C-alpha cells in the first residue's frame, strides 16, 4: 500500500494566512454586531478542545459557520461543505478557509479519508450533519446524517455538539450552547453495527435537543 505523507496541524503556517487575517479583522465587528452569549452545558464543556475533534451543529442560516467560529474561537475550523461550493465563484474563499469538499449525492471514500485525516492531524473539523440549511427558524432539528459517526470513529476523535439558537432578526444577540465532547466509542465500542451507527447519530441529535433547551 502506498505510504502518503501525513499532514499535521500547525500553530502558524502561510496557508492559514487568509483565514487568520479574516478572523482577526472580522472578529471585533462580529462581536459588536452579534454580541454572542456563550452557554456551556457543564464545567466539562467549558474545557478547551485539544487536538482533533468533530464539531457538529444545527444549521439554520448563512452565518452559522461564523457563529461556530465564534463559539469555539480559539481554534481554526475546517468546515465540511458540498463540493459544488468548490466549483462556484466563491471557491477561492472555500479553499483559503481549508474547507473539505464532500459529495452530498454520492458520499465517497476520499472525502471520508480527507475528513478523518484532518482530525488525525489535529484539526478541528466542523460540520452541519442535517446536511443542508434547515429553513425552519423554530430551531427544530432534522435527522443527523450517520456519516458523522463514521468520521469520528475512523479518526478516533470526540464529537463536540454546539446548538445555535435561531435569531428572529439580524440584530438579535446570538446565543449558542456548547456541549460536552461525546466519545462515540462509548456507545458500542469501536466496531458498531450498521444499525448501531444510526442509533449513535440519533443519540448525538438527542444531545443537540438537550442543548436547545439550555439556549
Amino acid at each position: 500500500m502506498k505510504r502518503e505523507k501525513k499532514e499535521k496541524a500547525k500553530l502558524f503556517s502561510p496557508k492559514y494566512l487568509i483565514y487568520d487575517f479574516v478572523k482577526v479583522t472580522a472578529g471585533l465587528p462580529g462581536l459588536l454586531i452579534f454580541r454572542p452569549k456563550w452557554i456551556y452545558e457543564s464545567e466539562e464543556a467549558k474545557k478547551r478542545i485539544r487536538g482533533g475533534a468533530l464539531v457538529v451543529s444545527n444549521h439554520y442560516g448563512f452565518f452559522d459557520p461564523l457563529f461556530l467560529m465564534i463559539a469555539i474561537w480559539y481554534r481554526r475550523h475546517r468546515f465540511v461543505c458540498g463540493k459544488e461550493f468548490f466549483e462556484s465563484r466563491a471557491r477561492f474563499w472555500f479553499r483559503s478557509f481549508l474547507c473539505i469538499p464532500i459529495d452530498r449525492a454520492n458520499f465517497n471514500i476520499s472525502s471520508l479519508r480527507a475528513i478523518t485525516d484532518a482530525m488525525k492531524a489535529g484539526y478541528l473539523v466542523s460540520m452541519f450533519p442535517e446536511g443542508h440549511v434547515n429553513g425552519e427558524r423554530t430551531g427544530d432539528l432534522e435527522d443527523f446524517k450517520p456519516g458523522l459517526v463514521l468520521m469520528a470513529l475512523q479518526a478516533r476523535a470526540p464529537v463536540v455538539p454546539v446548538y445555535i439558537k435561531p435569531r428572529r432578526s439580524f440584530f438579535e444577540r446570538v446565543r449558542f450552547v456548547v456541549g460536552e465532547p461525546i466519545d462515540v466509542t462509548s456507545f458500542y465500542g469501536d466496531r458498531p453495527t450498521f444499525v448501531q451507527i444510526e442509533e449513535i447519530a440519533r443519540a448525538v441529535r438527542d444531545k443537540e435537543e438537550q442543548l436547545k433547551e439550555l439556549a
Partner: protein
Amino acid sequence: MKREEIIEKLREILAAAGDGTVPAVSDDSNLATDLGLSSVSMLYMVIAIEEEFGIRFDDVGASDFALLSDVVDYIEGKLK
C-alpha cells in the same frame, strides 16, 4: 484468491456489521435493495474490506457499487 473466497469473506464482513447472521448473497445481490445498505453502511463496508483484504480503494462513492458482483470484481482487480 478465488471469487468464492472473496464472496465468503464479504459475507463474514456483512454478518459482523449487520445483525450477526450471515446473509445469503449471490453475485446479483443488490447492495441497497437486497442487503439494505445505506451510503454510510456502504463506506463502512469498504473500510472493513480494506482492512480484511489489505487493499486501498480509489476514489469510489457509495453509489458506485450497485451489485455485490461489482464489489467482488473491484476486489479481484485490486488483488491481481
